[in-house]
């Protein structure tokens, strides 16, 4: 037992040392932390109130007062991007939570049982994969009504098979190992083995996939809000801001430039973070998309 703890402490120090040398991880971590910080700050403070419309200030270019300019209602774009960050993160985070919460138990269960259960669950997975995710998300939100909650559910549903597949593949690679055999010989059941031995060994895989799905969730939320099915006004969202910008491209290009950059930077940060984690914890792991 002591030996086990010693080893993990040594690993932790080693992992941290590797993390500080990994450029991808450092850049990704910095960007993600910045976006998260901006979202948190927006709860307490934004340069301007995003709900107050000052028509006299409408579509002003970037200036010292309004770094990113103002929109067609005179709202400060920087402030809207800050509040929008909150919204994007919340939607993507819950959607990843849904995917992991349902997908990982399904995938590990399929791997532990094998046979018919495994086959049936994987065919179910194929079924969900046959529906282009965005198309179905558009259908779901259109049918059950537009809004952030339905967007979360729509994106979350399509995260389930992704995590199920990754968890199953990871678990299948763990099951033939000797320490599993030892655990079985000790009389442990499949559920206990899955919890104690399989899950800790596939956490890296799940973490890396989590960052990928988080990034895809942010893109999907922006897409849904852009076509009017995601977050509803007056709550600012990055996708919606781009929709508003589209018809004003000639007069106010900054309205399109900055929200798009916010999305790209956030997704870039998450992807770099995922790459970094994969490199640090398991050099052999390949990212799946």
């Amino acid at each position: 037992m002591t030996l086990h703890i010693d080893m993990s402490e040594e690993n932790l120090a080693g992992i941290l040392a590797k993390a500080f040398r990994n450029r991808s991880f450092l850049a990704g971590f910095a960007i993600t932390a910045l976006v998260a910080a901006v979202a948190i700050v927006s709860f307490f403070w934004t340069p301007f109130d995003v709900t107050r419309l000052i028509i006299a200030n409408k579509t002003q270019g970037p200036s010292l007062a309004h770094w990113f300019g103002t929109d067609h209602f005179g709202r400060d774009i920087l402030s809207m991007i800050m509040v929008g960050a909150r919204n994007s993160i919340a939607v993507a985070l819950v959607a990843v939570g849904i995917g992991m919460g349902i997908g990982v138990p399904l995938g590990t269960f399929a791997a532990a049982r094998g046979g018919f259960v495994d086959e049936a669950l994987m065919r179910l997975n194929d079924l969900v994969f046959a529906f282009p995710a965005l198309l179905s998300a558009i259908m779901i939100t259109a049918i059950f009504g537009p809004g952030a909650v339905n967007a979360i559910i729509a994106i979350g549903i399509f995260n389930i098979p992704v995590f199920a597949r990754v968890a199953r593949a990871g678990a299948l690679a763990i099951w033939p190992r000797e320490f599993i055999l030892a655990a079985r010989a000790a009389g442990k059941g499949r559920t206990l083995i899955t919890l104690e031995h399989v899950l800790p060994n596939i956490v890296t895989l799940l973490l890396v996939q989590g960052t990928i799905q988080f990034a895809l969730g942010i893109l999907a939320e922006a897409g849904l809000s852009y076509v009017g099915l995601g977050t509803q006004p007056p709550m600012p969202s990055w996708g919606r801001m781009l929709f508003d910008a589209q018809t004003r491209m000639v007069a106010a290009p900054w309205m399109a430039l900055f929200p798009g950059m916010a999305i790209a930077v956030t997704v870039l940060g998450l992807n770099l973070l995922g790459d970094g984690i994969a490199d640090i914890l398991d050099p052999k792991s390949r990212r799946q998309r």
Partner: protein
Amino acid sequence: MTAYLLKRLAIALVTLVLASMVVFAVLEIIPGDPARLMLGLNASAEQVELLRNQMGLDAPLATRYLHWAGGLLSLDFGRSYTYSVPVIDLVRERVVVSLPLALIALALSTVIAIPVGLFSASRRGRAGDTIAMGAAQLGVAVPNFWFALMLIYLFAVWLRLVPAGGFPGWSAGVWPALKSLVLPAIALALPQAAILARVTRSALIEVLHEDYIRTARAKGLPYRAVLWRHALRNAMIPVLTILGLQFAFLLAGTIIVENVFYLPGLGRLVFQAITQRDLIVVESVVMLLVAAVIAVNLLVDLSYAVVDPRLRSRQ
């Protein structure tokens, strides 16, 4: 080989049937009666009942499903509630926009991604690789509809090289029609190319470590020949898998990108149909897209057998 093919084919068919049931069931539970929607608020209960009967809406669930699914097989999708024309006519009009768009985008992404992947893999860790993969990271992160807006600003508003949106139709000539598909295709292709380049690179790097690569080099084959003939071929399986997946992404991507460019394609059709509650159109187009995705994935499975002789020899 035959067993492998039959198994893939069976899986594809089962998936298709299940998918049709899901689509039918989802649209079945939606609130709103199409008959009432068509007749408007002033219609009497008798009129609505008559139309429901004419449209076959009062038949039992299973009967309606079988009727609908049977219709799909013979390309009879029924009539649109809002346009009052056969759905197949609407689809035929739109598919000539969406399919070329998706194919151009797919071709464009492949043509960019494979050489970039080869370039990066053969210069692993050097400046060229770092720059190319940095660009790929950026490409993955950029939302395609925003990239589309930026392209419109640059090439349509500023440089005035191509139209900002709309589609003149193929009857206006191949060149004007193609010209209006250029920007949407680039917008769709960029993120896909970025993903594909990354996958190609990592698959190649994996393969380049293999013994047979060293053997090929040792027997005096030039590096370029080894890269193209031996490494690329063996790296094709993950690349093909991603290409298949990307087709699904492209189809879904067209929905949003067609909205950016006001292109009258399938994506815009399904989007308008959803807002107009024209369920029969939604059902049909979604089924068509799903069938296309399943067919492409089947093709990818089959192409594994072509690329990888080991799969062929396995009985």
